[in-house]
């Protein structure tokens, strides 16, 4: 049995004995899928509900029987707004815009005097603001109907009024639309992997120095490279285990979704899970090596934790590059670890096709970086032990 294998087995056993850390890490990675999906589905269900809301809140609707008649013909429910609606809107509690109708509405309308209707909302209340367009559209339709009736009365053909016809067509297919919402899923999976591997990475390097067990270990005939390879194997395994768990947790989590639209749009089957893992496993291995390379330079776990926050920060900020720039996907994105994986996972979720080379490039980058880090740790190990 080679040295690397012995070290690997020992480190895995050691990591498994660290029950408290293990349980915390595994639980959070398993819970992450259901929690994100549940949160998203609540969000989507809420916005769907509002979009489909058939309510119009009014003040003084009794002065406008013709408008009421029109709204009810559109199957909209006319509701009387509470007296303190302005305060409620300002405090973002109402969630609906309010129509304010003046007393002389009906007579003014009959006389053709263009009576004024106020549409009150607050741009601070996003839910109310979202409803403004809907109410506006209803009012426009009312406007048009009244005008058409008047013109037809005077013998003008309705077609004269419409020089052009407009019809809306949305080209985004359902998957692409859902990906705007589910775009954060890859990011959370990446974080789970990072935090999962962090503890093992620190314990096997800086922890070993802090305990004073690194020096005796290096006095065995096992070569530094074998020791480092074994340790890295164990840390990467933990990271990969977390990746597998968090990816698989999305499969049963889909049953939790409250929004039917999202359930129909978020397609995460075995194929997607497999592609996610194909991207995440090499990344987990590379990040493990990187965190170990940083931690081995630190004398204590605490020091190593502080140094490794930089890695975590960079890995969590890189995927946001696409948010801050409007230029879309650039070729260099696939060369950058973390960013490449999040980008490609986004493509998987959107159902975009991608070629095998797209998978291989990030894999090659990860492999090269991992090899560099391992060589560096092996070189640094002896210096680290005697300081």
């Amino acid at each position, binding site marked *: 049995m080679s040295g690397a294998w012995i070290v690997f087995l020992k480190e895995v056993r050691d990591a498994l004995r660290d029950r408290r850390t293990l349980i915390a890490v595994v639980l959070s990675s398993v819970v992450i899928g259901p929690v994100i999906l549940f949160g998203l589905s609540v969000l989507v269900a809420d916005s769907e509900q509002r979009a489909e809301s058939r309510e119009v809140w009014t003040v003084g609707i009794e002065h406008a029987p013709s408008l009421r008649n029109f709204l009810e013909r559109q199957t909209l429910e006319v509701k009387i707004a509470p007296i303190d609606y302005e305060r409620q809107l300002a405090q973002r509690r109402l969630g609906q815009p309010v129509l304010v109708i003046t007393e002389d509405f009906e007579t003014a309308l009959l006389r053709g005097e263009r009576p004024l209707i106020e549409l009150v909302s607050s741009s601070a209340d996003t839910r109310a603001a979202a409803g403004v367009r809907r109410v506006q559209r209803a009012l426009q339709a009312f406007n048009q109907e009244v005008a058409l009736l008047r013109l037809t009365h005077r013998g003008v053909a309705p077609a004269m009024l419409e020089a052009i016809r407009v019809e809306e067509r949305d080209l985004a297919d359902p998957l692409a639309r859902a990906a705007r919402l589910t775009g954060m899923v890859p990011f959370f999976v990446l974080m789970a992997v990072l935090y999962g591997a962090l503890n093992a990475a620190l314990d096997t390097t800086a922890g070993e120095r802090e305990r004073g*067990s690194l020096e*005796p270990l290096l006095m065995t005939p096992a070569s530094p490279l074998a020791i480092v390879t074994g340790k890295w194997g164990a840390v990467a395994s933990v990271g990969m285990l977390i990746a597998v768990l968090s990816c698989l947790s999305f499969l049963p989590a889909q049953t939790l979704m409250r929004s039917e639209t999202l359930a129909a749009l978020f397609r995460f089957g075995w194929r997607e899970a497999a592609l996610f893992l194909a991207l995440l496993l090499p990344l987990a291995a590379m990040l493990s090596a990187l965190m170990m390379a940083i931690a081995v330079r630190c004398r204590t776990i605490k020091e190593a934790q502080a140094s490794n926050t930089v890695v975590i920060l960079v890995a969590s900020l890189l995927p946001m590059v696409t948010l801050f720039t409007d230029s879309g996907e650039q070729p260099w994105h696939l060369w950058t670890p973390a960013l490449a994986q999040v980008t490609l996972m986004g493509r998987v979720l959107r159902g975009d096709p991608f070629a095998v080379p797209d998978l291989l490039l990030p894999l090659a980058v990860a492999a090269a970086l991992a090899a560099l880090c391992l060589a560096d740790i092996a070189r640094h190990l002896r210096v680290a032990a005697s300081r």
Partner: protein
Amino acid sequence: MIEIDGLRKRFVQGRGRKARVIDAVRGVTLRAANGRITALLGPNGAGKTTTLRMVAGLLHPDAGRVAVDGIDVAVRPRDALARLGVLSDARGLYPRLSARENVLYHARLHGLAEDDAQARIEELARMLEFSDLLDRRTEGFSQGERMKTALARALVHDPPNIVLDEPTTGLDVQAIRGLRQALRHLRDEHGKCIVFCTHIMQEVERLCDHVVVVAHGRAVAEGSVADICRLGGYDDFEQSFVSLAFGPETQGAAVP
């Protein structure tokens, strides 16, 4: 047998103008024979630990040569380490593993088969008197219990050469006596070469056949306890050691 010849090591602390050069070891030469307990006796900061680290191949000497049973440590470090058992200054254990697992880990890394390793662990535990602790996690071990485990770990591959850095730290009288007996047994029955690094006179007087006094990074005197007393010019071993290690001659010699 361990042969050290003209060993030198210099550390540079800091960078640029603030850099400070520390000559930790400046020309240590000694020979530890088989079937003998050789003491490396010196005050704190004399360069004992640095010398041991070079013997174990952890540090590369700036000059000089270390050979373990004729194997040059710089040339074939793995072969040299296989013939060397070191209880170094750093003797940390893995708290989540039992004493047995701790020792077994190193046994496997030394290439012992599982069965041989287990038999060897039982034997060492009997010799060092900690058989009842073997299957407990080392988390709550006392200093002495830790020491015994670390010592068993260093000796698990039955090395012909044993280097011990301050092995009595934290041990109670009973345990120190046990250790002494074990070391005598290893010397007399197995003909091991034992190097015993310490600053405690008593230990040296009671146990060691050969003494090398180290001060300011070099070996300043060598011989039996009686020889050291003669060289130091006092009947009392401690007094002789102080005059050799801190005396005016050494001070003069230390600053070339």
